[in-house]
Protein backbone atom coordinates (compact mmCIF):
# COMPACT_ATOMS: atom_id res chain seq x y z
CA UNK A 1 0.00 0.00 0.00
CA UNK A 2 2.93 2.28 0.77
CA UNK A 3 4.34 1.54 -2.64
CA UNK A 4 1.04 2.48 -4.27
CA UNK A 5 0.93 5.76 -2.37
CA UNK A 6 4.55 6.47 -3.22
CA UNK A 7 3.92 5.87 -6.91
CA UNK A 8 0.77 7.99 -6.87
CA UNK A 9 2.67 10.77 -5.14
CA UNK A 10 5.38 10.49 -7.77
CA UNK A 11 2.81 10.75 -10.54
CA UNK A 12 1.17 13.79 -8.90
CA UNK A 13 4.54 15.51 -8.62
CA UNK A 14 5.24 14.73 -12.23
CA UNK A 15 1.89 16.09 -13.40
CA UNK A 16 2.64 19.24 -11.40
CA UNK A 17 5.77 19.72 -13.50
CA UNK A 18 8.44 18.15 -11.32
CA UNK A 19 11.14 17.04 -13.76
CA UNK A 20 12.93 15.00 -11.10
CA UNK A 21 9.76 12.95 -10.52
CA UNK A 22 9.50 12.20 -14.22
CA UNK A 23 13.12 11.18 -14.29
CA UNK A 24 12.46 8.78 -11.43
CA UNK A 25 9.53 7.25 -13.29
CA UNK A 26 11.69 6.76 -16.36
CA UNK A 27 14.42 5.16 -14.26
CA UNK A 28 11.95 2.81 -12.58
CA UNK A 29 9.98 1.63 -15.58
CA UNK A 30 12.20 1.84 -18.65
CA UNK A 31 13.65 -1.63 -18.13
CA UNK A 32 10.25 -3.26 -17.84
CA UNK A 33 8.82 -1.45 -20.87
CA UNK A 34 11.90 -2.20 -22.94
CA UNK A 35 11.64 -5.91 -22.12
CA UNK A 36 7.97 -6.10 -23.06
CA UNK A 37 8.73 -4.36 -26.37
CA UNK A 38 11.81 -6.50 -27.01
CA UNK A 39 10.04 -9.78 -26.39
CA UNK A 40 7.04 -8.71 -28.43
CA UNK A 41 8.72 -7.30 -31.52
CA UNK A 42 11.90 -9.39 -31.33
CA UNK A 43 14.36 -6.67 -32.31
CA UNK A 44 16.50 -4.62 -29.92
CA UNK A 45 16.47 -1.56 -32.18
CA UNK A 46 12.71 -1.60 -32.61
CA UNK A 47 12.28 -2.18 -28.88
CA UNK A 48 14.42 0.88 -28.13
CA UNK A 49 12.40 3.06 -30.52
CA UNK A 50 9.11 1.74 -29.18
CA UNK A 51 10.17 2.26 -25.57
CA UNK A 52 10.90 5.89 -26.33
CA UNK A 53 7.52 6.24 -28.02
CA UNK A 54 5.82 4.68 -25.01
CA UNK A 55 7.42 7.20 -22.66
CA UNK A 56 6.55 10.10 -24.94
CA UNK A 57 2.95 8.91 -24.94
CA UNK A 58 3.02 8.44 -21.17
CA UNK A 59 4.46 11.92 -20.70
CA UNK A 60 1.60 13.43 -22.70
CA UNK A 61 -1.15 11.40 -21.07
CA UNK A 62 0.12 11.10 -17.52
CA UNK A 63 -2.58 13.45 -16.27
CA UNK A 64 -5.24 10.94 -17.40
CA UNK A 65 -3.95 8.25 -15.05
CA UNK A 66 -6.56 7.39 -12.42
CA UNK A 67 -5.03 5.67 -9.42
CA UNK A 68 -8.40 4.39 -8.23
CA UNK A 69 -9.04 2.28 -11.32
CA UNK A 70 -5.77 0.39 -11.68
CA UNK A 71 -2.21 0.41 -10.43
CA UNK A 72 0.35 2.56 -12.17
CA UNK A 73 2.18 -0.56 -13.30
CA UNK A 74 -0.99 -1.81 -15.00
CA UNK A 75 -1.52 1.58 -16.62
CA UNK A 76 2.05 1.66 -17.90
CA UNK A 77 1.70 -1.86 -19.28
CA UNK A 78 -1.60 -0.94 -20.94
CA UNK A 79 -0.03 2.05 -22.67
CA UNK A 80 2.84 -0.15 -23.83
CA UNK A 81 0.58 -2.91 -25.07
CA UNK A 82 -1.69 -0.50 -26.97
CA UNK A 83 1.29 1.02 -28.73
CA UNK A 84 2.64 -2.40 -29.62
CA UNK A 85 -0.71 -3.46 -31.04
CA UNK A 86 -0.89 -0.26 -33.09
CA UNK A 87 2.52 -0.90 -34.55
CA UNK A 88 1.71 -4.52 -35.21
CA UNK A 89 -1.46 -3.56 -37.04
CA UNK A 90 0.51 -1.20 -39.23
CA UNK A 91 2.38 -4.29 -40.39
CA UNK A 92 5.71 -3.02 -39.22
CA UNK A 93 6.28 -5.86 -36.83
CA UNK A 94 4.67 -8.74 -38.58
CA UNK A 95 5.21 -12.28 -37.48
CA UNK A 96 8.41 -13.96 -38.44
CA UNK A 97 7.42 -16.39 -41.15
CA UNK A 98 10.68 -18.15 -41.84
CA UNK A 99 10.90 -21.82 -41.19
CA UNK A 100 12.57 -23.32 -38.21
CA UNK A 101 14.84 -25.08 -40.68
CA UNK A 102 15.92 -21.83 -42.28
CA UNK A 103 19.28 -20.34 -41.42
CA UNK A 104 18.55 -17.00 -39.78
CA UNK A 105 20.78 -14.32 -41.23
CA UNK A 106 23.41 -16.83 -42.28
CA UNK A 107 24.86 -16.86 -38.80
CA UNK A 108 26.23 -19.67 -36.67
CA UNK A 109 28.08 -21.39 -39.47
CA UNK A 110 25.00 -22.53 -41.35
CA UNK A 111 23.40 -24.40 -38.49
CA UNK A 112 19.63 -24.56 -38.60
CA UNK A 113 17.50 -23.54 -35.68
CA UNK A 114 16.79 -27.20 -35.06
CA UNK A 115 20.48 -28.08 -35.07
CA UNK A 116 21.22 -25.36 -32.58
CA UNK A 117 18.47 -26.65 -30.35
CA UNK A 118 19.73 -30.22 -30.54
CA UNK A 119 21.77 -31.45 -27.64
CA UNK A 120 22.22 -35.22 -27.30
CA UNK A 121 23.40 -34.97 -23.75
CA UNK A 122 20.70 -32.74 -22.30
CA UNK A 123 17.01 -31.93 -22.78
CA UNK A 124 15.64 -28.60 -23.95
CA UNK A 125 15.02 -27.40 -20.41
CA UNK A 126 18.70 -27.64 -19.56
CA UNK A 127 19.71 -25.82 -22.70
CA UNK A 128 17.55 -22.81 -21.90
CA UNK A 129 20.28 -21.84 -19.49
CA UNK A 130 22.67 -21.19 -22.32
CA UNK A 131 22.74 -17.98 -24.28
CA UNK A 132 22.06 -19.70 -27.57
CA UNK A 133 19.08 -21.57 -26.22
CA UNK A 134 17.66 -18.32 -24.94
CA UNK A 135 17.93 -17.00 -28.44
CA UNK A 136 16.01 -20.02 -29.74
CA UNK A 137 13.22 -19.53 -27.25
CA UNK A 138 13.11 -15.83 -28.07
CA UNK A 139 12.77 -16.63 -31.77
CA UNK A 140 10.12 -19.26 -31.07
CA UNK A 141 8.21 -16.69 -29.03
CA UNK A 142 8.12 -14.49 -32.12
CA UNK A 143 6.36 -17.25 -34.02
CA UNK A 144 3.35 -17.21 -31.72
CA UNK A 145 0.31 -15.21 -32.71
CA UNK A 146 0.28 -11.72 -31.15
CA UNK A 147 -2.62 -12.59 -28.83
CA UNK A 148 -0.82 -15.60 -27.37
CA UNK A 149 2.54 -13.87 -27.32
CA UNK A 150 1.40 -10.85 -25.33
CA UNK A 151 -0.40 -13.09 -22.85
CA UNK A 152 2.62 -15.27 -22.06
CA UNK A 153 4.96 -12.26 -22.01
CA UNK A 154 2.87 -10.52 -19.37
CA UNK A 155 2.42 -13.68 -17.32
CA UNK A 156 5.69 -15.56 -17.56
CA UNK A 157 8.15 -12.75 -18.22
CA UNK A 158 6.56 -9.85 -16.35
CA UNK A 159 4.93 -11.92 -13.57
CA UNK A 160 1.65 -10.06 -13.74
CA UNK A 161 -1.40 -11.65 -12.15
CA UNK A 162 -4.37 -12.72 -14.24
CA UNK A 163 -6.57 -9.87 -13.08
CA UNK A 164 -4.13 -7.19 -14.20
CA UNK A 165 -3.49 -8.98 -17.48
CA UNK A 166 -7.25 -9.04 -18.08
CA UNK A 167 -7.34 -5.25 -17.55
CA UNK A 168 -4.42 -4.70 -19.90
CA UNK A 169 -5.73 -6.98 -22.65
CA UNK A 170 -9.36 -5.95 -22.10
CA UNK A 171 -10.58 -9.57 -22.07
CA UNK A 172 -12.12 -11.74 -19.31
CA UNK A 173 -9.83 -13.54 -16.91
CA UNK A 174 -10.85 -16.93 -18.31
CA UNK A 175 -9.76 -15.84 -21.78
CA UNK A 176 -6.44 -14.73 -20.35
CA UNK A 177 -5.83 -18.15 -18.82
CA UNK A 178 -6.85 -19.89 -22.01
CA UNK A 179 -4.46 -17.74 -24.07
CA UNK A 180 -1.63 -18.37 -21.64
CA UNK A 181 -2.20 -22.13 -21.80
CA UNK A 182 -2.29 -22.10 -25.57
CA UNK A 183 0.73 -19.86 -25.79
CA UNK A 184 2.83 -22.07 -23.55
CA UNK A 185 1.70 -25.22 -25.33
CA UNK A 186 2.35 -23.79 -28.77
CA UNK A 187 5.80 -22.59 -27.77
CA UNK A 188 6.66 -26.01 -26.43
CA UNK A 189 5.41 -27.67 -29.60
CA UNK A 190 7.41 -25.31 -31.83
CA UNK A 191 10.61 -26.12 -30.01
CA UNK A 192 9.86 -29.78 -29.44
CA UNK A 193 8.74 -30.45 -33.03
CA UNK A 194 12.04 -29.33 -34.41
CA UNK A 195 13.92 -31.12 -31.70
CA UNK A 196 12.21 -34.36 -32.64
CA UNK A 197 12.80 -33.78 -36.34
CA UNK A 198 16.52 -33.69 -35.76
CA UNK A 199 16.42 -36.85 -33.72
Amino acid at each position, binding site marked *: MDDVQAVNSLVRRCVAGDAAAWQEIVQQYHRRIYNICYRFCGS*AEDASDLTQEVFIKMYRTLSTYDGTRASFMTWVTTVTRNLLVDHFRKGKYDRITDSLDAVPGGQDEGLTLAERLEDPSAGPEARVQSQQAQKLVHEALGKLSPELREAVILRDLQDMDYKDIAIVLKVPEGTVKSRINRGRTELARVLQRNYKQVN
Partner: protein
Amino acid sequence: MPDHIQPGMQCAEVEALLADAIDGTLHGATLAAFEAHRDSCAACRVMVEEASRGMRWLKGLDEAEPPRHLVHNILAQTIGQMPEAHPVPAPKGEGWLERLKGRLAPMFAPIATPRFAMSFGMAFFSITMLLSIAGFHIADLRHVDLSAKGISKAYYSTQARVVRYYENIRLVYEIETRVRDIRRVATPSDEQPQQAAPQNNQQQNNPPKGDDQQDKDRRNQNYNREMGRPALAASPPSSNQVMDEVNSQARLNRRKA
Protein backbone atom coordinates in the same frame (compact mmCIF):
# COMPACT_ATOMS: atom_id res chain seq x y z
CA MET B 1 -8.66 -31.76 -27.79
CA PRO B 2 -11.16 -34.62 -27.52
CA ASP B 3 -13.71 -33.96 -24.86
CA HIS B 4 -13.49 -37.29 -23.06
CA ILE B 5 -15.69 -37.86 -20.10
CA GLN B 6 -13.48 -38.87 -17.22
CA PRO B 7 -14.55 -39.76 -13.71
CA GLY B 8 -14.91 -36.59 -11.66
CA MET B 9 -13.70 -34.07 -14.24
CA GLN B 10 -13.95 -33.39 -17.99
CA CYS B 11 -11.23 -32.31 -20.42
CA ALA B 12 -12.70 -28.83 -20.75
CA GLU B 13 -12.55 -28.39 -16.99
CA VAL B 14 -8.95 -29.60 -16.95
CA GLU B 15 -8.07 -27.03 -19.59
CA ALA B 16 -9.77 -24.28 -17.61
CA LEU B 17 -7.85 -25.27 -14.46
CA LEU B 18 -4.54 -25.82 -16.23
CA ALA B 19 -3.08 -22.40 -15.51
CA ASP B 20 -3.96 -22.64 -11.82
CA ALA B 21 -2.61 -26.18 -11.65
CA ILE B 22 0.75 -25.09 -13.12
CA ASP B 23 0.81 -22.15 -10.72
CA GLY B 24 0.26 -24.60 -7.85
CA THR B 25 -2.86 -22.88 -6.60
CA LEU B 26 -5.15 -25.93 -6.84
CA HIS B 27 -5.90 -27.64 -3.54
CA GLY B 28 -7.97 -30.40 -2.02
CA ALA B 29 -10.62 -32.20 -4.03
CA THR B 30 -10.13 -30.04 -7.10
CA LEU B 31 -6.45 -30.90 -7.29
CA ALA B 32 -7.19 -34.57 -6.75
CA ALA B 33 -9.80 -34.59 -9.52
CA PHE B 34 -7.45 -32.72 -11.84
CA GLU B 35 -4.60 -35.15 -11.25
CA ALA B 36 -6.89 -38.13 -11.60
CA HIS B 37 -8.10 -36.91 -14.97
CA ARG B 38 -4.58 -36.03 -16.13
CA ASP B 39 -3.32 -39.48 -15.26
CA SER B 40 -6.18 -41.22 -17.03
CA CYS B 41 -6.46 -39.02 -20.17
CA ALA B 42 -3.48 -39.15 -22.55
CA ALA B 43 -4.45 -35.99 -24.45
CA CYS B 44 -4.76 -33.96 -21.28
CA ARG B 45 -1.52 -35.37 -19.93
CA VAL B 46 0.33 -34.22 -23.05
CA MET B 47 -1.32 -30.83 -22.83
CA VAL B 48 -0.29 -30.38 -19.21
CA GLU B 49 3.27 -31.47 -19.96
CA GLU B 50 3.61 -29.13 -22.92
CA ALA B 51 2.19 -26.18 -21.05
CA SER B 52 4.52 -26.82 -18.11
CA ARG B 53 7.51 -27.13 -20.41
CA GLY B 54 6.60 -23.97 -22.29
CA MET B 55 6.30 -22.07 -19.04
CA ARG B 56 9.69 -23.30 -17.84
CA TRP B 57 11.36 -22.20 -21.07
CA LEU B 58 9.79 -18.79 -20.87
CA LYS B 59 10.75 -18.41 -17.22
CA GLY B 60 14.30 -19.33 -18.18
CA LEU B 61 14.60 -16.27 -20.40
CA ASP B 62 16.80 -13.61 -18.82
CA GLU B 63 15.81 -9.99 -18.67
CA ALA B 64 17.09 -8.14 -21.72
CA GLU B 65 19.50 -5.32 -21.02
CA PRO B 66 18.26 -1.97 -22.39
CA PRO B 67 20.66 0.16 -24.45
CA ARG B 68 22.91 2.36 -22.36
CA HIS B 69 21.56 5.65 -23.69
CA LEU B 70 17.89 4.72 -23.54
CA VAL B 71 17.09 6.75 -20.41
CA HIS B 72 19.13 9.65 -21.74
CA ASN B 73 17.23 9.59 -25.04
CA ILE B 74 13.83 9.32 -23.33
CA LEU B 75 14.52 12.31 -21.09
CA ALA B 76 15.89 14.32 -23.99
CA GLN B 77 12.72 13.64 -25.99
CA THR B 78 10.30 14.34 -23.18
CA ILE B 79 11.60 17.09 -20.90
CA GLY B 80 14.78 17.87 -22.82
CA GLN B 81 16.82 17.29 -19.71
CA MET B 82 19.75 14.96 -19.31
CA PRO B 83 20.23 12.93 -16.15
CA GLU B 84 23.72 14.33 -15.79
CA ALA B 85 22.27 17.84 -15.61
CA HIS B 86 21.27 17.48 -11.97
CA PRO B 87 23.07 19.62 -9.40
CA VAL B 88 26.40 18.16 -8.45
CA PRO B 89 28.15 19.84 -5.51
CA ALA B 90 31.64 20.98 -6.37
CA PRO B 91 34.31 19.19 -4.37
CA LYS B 92 36.20 21.18 -1.79
CA GLY B 93 39.45 22.77 -2.78
CA GLU B 94 38.27 23.87 -6.20
CA GLY B 95 38.61 27.43 -7.38
CA TRP B 96 35.83 30.03 -7.44
CA LEU B 97 35.37 29.55 -11.16
CA GLU B 98 34.59 25.85 -10.75
CA ARG B 99 32.24 26.58 -7.85
CA LEU B 100 30.46 29.23 -9.91
CA LYS B 101 30.15 26.80 -12.80
CA GLY B 102 28.77 24.18 -10.43
CA ARG B 103 26.10 26.59 -9.21
CA LEU B 104 25.17 27.99 -12.59
CA ALA B 105 25.11 24.68 -14.44
CA PRO B 106 21.76 23.49 -12.96
CA MET B 107 20.13 26.84 -13.74
CA PHE B 108 21.17 26.69 -17.38
CA ALA B 109 20.55 22.96 -17.68
CA PRO B 110 17.12 23.36 -19.38
CA ILE B 111 18.56 25.58 -22.09
CA ALA B 112 21.87 23.78 -22.45
CA THR B 113 20.40 21.27 -24.86
CA PRO B 114 20.94 20.69 -28.56
CA ARG B 115 17.27 21.44 -29.25
CA PHE B 116 17.43 24.85 -27.56
CA ALA B 117 20.73 25.66 -29.25
CA MET B 118 19.20 24.83 -32.62
CA SER B 119 16.11 26.96 -31.91
CA PHE B 120 18.22 29.86 -30.72
CA GLY B 121 20.43 29.63 -33.80
CA MET B 122 17.43 29.62 -36.11
CA ALA B 123 15.86 32.61 -34.33
CA PHE B 124 19.13 34.56 -34.47
CA PHE B 125 19.52 33.76 -38.15
CA SER B 126 15.94 34.83 -38.91
CA ILE B 127 16.25 38.14 -37.00
CA THR B 128 19.57 38.93 -38.62
CA MET B 129 18.15 38.24 -42.06
CA LEU B 130 15.09 40.42 -41.40
CA LEU B 131 17.26 43.31 -40.16
CA SER B 132 19.48 42.97 -43.17
CA ILE B 133 16.49 43.07 -45.52
CA ALA B 134 15.14 46.11 -43.67
CA GLY B 135 18.43 47.93 -44.26
CA PHE B 136 19.58 47.93 -40.68
CA HIS B 137 23.25 47.43 -40.02
CA ILE B 138 24.92 47.05 -36.67
CA ALA B 139 27.73 49.37 -37.81
CA ASP B 140 25.21 52.22 -38.16
CA LEU B 141 24.74 52.25 -34.41
CA ARG B 142 28.01 54.19 -34.08
CA HIS B 143 26.42 57.20 -35.75
CA VAL B 144 23.33 57.25 -33.59
CA ASP B 145 22.91 60.43 -31.53
CA LEU B 146 22.25 59.25 -27.99
CA SER B 147 21.71 62.69 -26.44
CA ALA B 148 18.25 63.57 -25.08
CA LYS B 149 17.59 65.90 -27.97
CA GLY B 150 18.76 63.38 -30.50
CA ILE B 151 16.61 60.59 -29.03
CA SER B 152 13.59 62.92 -28.95
CA LYS B 153 14.16 63.88 -32.55
CA ALA B 154 14.57 60.28 -33.62
CA TYR B 155 11.41 59.35 -31.76
CA TYR B 156 9.26 62.01 -33.40
CA SER B 157 10.68 61.45 -36.85
CA THR B 158 10.08 57.70 -36.52
CA GLN B 159 6.55 58.32 -35.30
CA ALA B 160 5.86 60.67 -38.20
CA ARG B 161 7.27 58.13 -40.64
CA VAL B 162 5.07 55.39 -39.24
CA VAL B 163 1.96 57.58 -39.32
CA ARG B 164 2.72 58.63 -42.86
CA TYR B 165 3.29 55.06 -43.91
CA TYR B 166 0.04 53.98 -42.27
CA GLU B 167 -1.96 56.73 -43.90
CA ASN B 168 -0.46 55.99 -47.27
CA ILE B 169 -1.48 52.36 -47.24
CA ARG B 170 -3.97 51.80 -50.02
CA LEU B 171 -6.21 49.66 -47.86
CA VAL B 172 -6.45 52.33 -45.16
CA TYR B 173 -7.21 54.92 -47.77
CA GLU B 174 -9.95 52.81 -49.32
CA ILE B 175 -11.52 52.06 -45.95
CA GLU B 176 -11.47 55.75 -45.03
CA THR B 177 -13.05 56.63 -48.36
CA ARG B 178 -15.76 54.05 -47.90
CA VAL B 179 -16.48 55.26 -44.38
CA ARG B 180 -16.62 58.80 -45.64
CA ASP B 181 -19.03 57.80 -48.42
CA ILE B 182 -21.26 55.97 -46.00
CA ARG B 183 -21.23 58.90 -43.62
CA ARG B 184 -22.10 61.25 -46.45
CA VAL B 185 -25.00 59.05 -47.56
CA ALA B 186 -26.24 58.77 -44.00
CA THR B 187 -26.11 62.55 -43.54
CA PRO B 188 -29.55 64.02 -44.47
CA SER B 189 -28.39 67.40 -45.82
CA ASP B 190 -26.04 67.59 -48.76
CA GLU B 191 -25.89 71.31 -48.59
CA GLN B 192 -22.81 71.65 -46.45
CA PRO B 193 -20.34 70.21 -48.94
CA GLN B 194 -21.92 72.24 -51.72
CA GLN B 195 -21.60 75.39 -49.66
CA ALA B 196 -18.12 74.55 -48.54
CA ALA B 197 -16.71 74.07 -52.01
CA PRO B 198 -17.15 77.72 -53.12
CA GLN B 199 -15.69 78.89 -49.84
CA ASN B 200 -12.66 76.80 -50.46
CA ASN B 201 -12.20 78.22 -53.93
CA GLN B 202 -12.74 81.67 -52.60
CA GLN B 203 -10.17 81.20 -49.91
CA GLN B 204 -7.54 80.08 -52.38
CA ASN B 205 -8.05 83.26 -54.39
CA ASN B 206 -8.08 85.61 -51.39
CA PRO B 207 -4.93 87.30 -50.04
CA PRO B 208 -3.58 86.34 -46.53
CA LYS B 209 -5.80 87.39 -43.63
CA GLY B 210 -5.54 87.83 -39.91
CA ASP B 211 -4.77 85.03 -37.42
CA ASP B 212 -8.37 84.37 -36.41
CA GLN B 213 -9.55 84.40 -39.98
CA GLN B 214 -6.77 82.00 -40.93
CA ASP B 215 -7.85 79.54 -38.23
CA LYS B 216 -11.41 79.65 -39.50
CA ASP B 217 -10.28 79.17 -43.07
CA ARG B 218 -8.13 76.24 -42.08
CA ARG B 219 -11.00 74.62 -40.24
CA ASN B 220 -13.19 75.05 -43.29
CA GLN B 221 -10.44 73.66 -45.42
CA ASN B 222 -10.14 70.56 -43.29
CA TYR B 223 -13.88 70.18 -43.26
CA ASN B 224 -14.01 70.42 -47.03
CA ARG B 225 -11.27 67.84 -47.36
CA GLU B 226 -13.08 65.41 -45.15
CA MET B 227 -16.61 65.89 -46.37
CA GLY B 228 -16.38 67.28 -49.87
CA ARG B 229 -13.71 65.52 -51.82
CA PRO B 230 -11.50 62.53 -51.20
CA ALA B 231 -8.06 63.14 -49.77
CA LEU B 232 -5.10 61.96 -51.75
CA ALA B 233 -3.64 59.06 -49.84
CA ALA B 234 -0.28 59.16 -51.50
CA SER B 235 0.31 62.85 -50.97
CA PRO B 236 2.24 63.78 -47.84
CA PRO B 237 1.08 66.77 -45.82
CA SER B 238 2.29 69.94 -47.39
CA SER B 239 4.97 71.97 -45.69
CA ASN B 240 2.63 74.98 -45.51
CA GLN B 241 0.09 73.06 -43.49
CA VAL B 242 2.73 71.85 -41.09
CA MET B 243 4.10 75.35 -40.69
CA ASP B 244 0.58 76.70 -40.09
CA GLU B 245 0.00 74.16 -37.34
CA VAL B 246 3.32 74.97 -35.70
CA ASN B 247 2.61 78.71 -35.83
CA SER B 248 -0.88 78.36 -34.40
CA GLN B 249 0.45 76.20 -31.56
CA ALA B 250 3.11 78.79 -30.81
CA ARG B 251 0.46 81.55 -30.75
CA LEU B 252 -1.70 79.60 -28.37
CA ASN B 253 1.28 79.08 -26.08
CA ARG B 254 2.08 82.80 -26.16
CA ARG B 255 -1.50 83.68 -25.26
CA LYS B 256 -1.48 81.26 -22.36
CA ALA B 257 1.75 82.77 -21.13
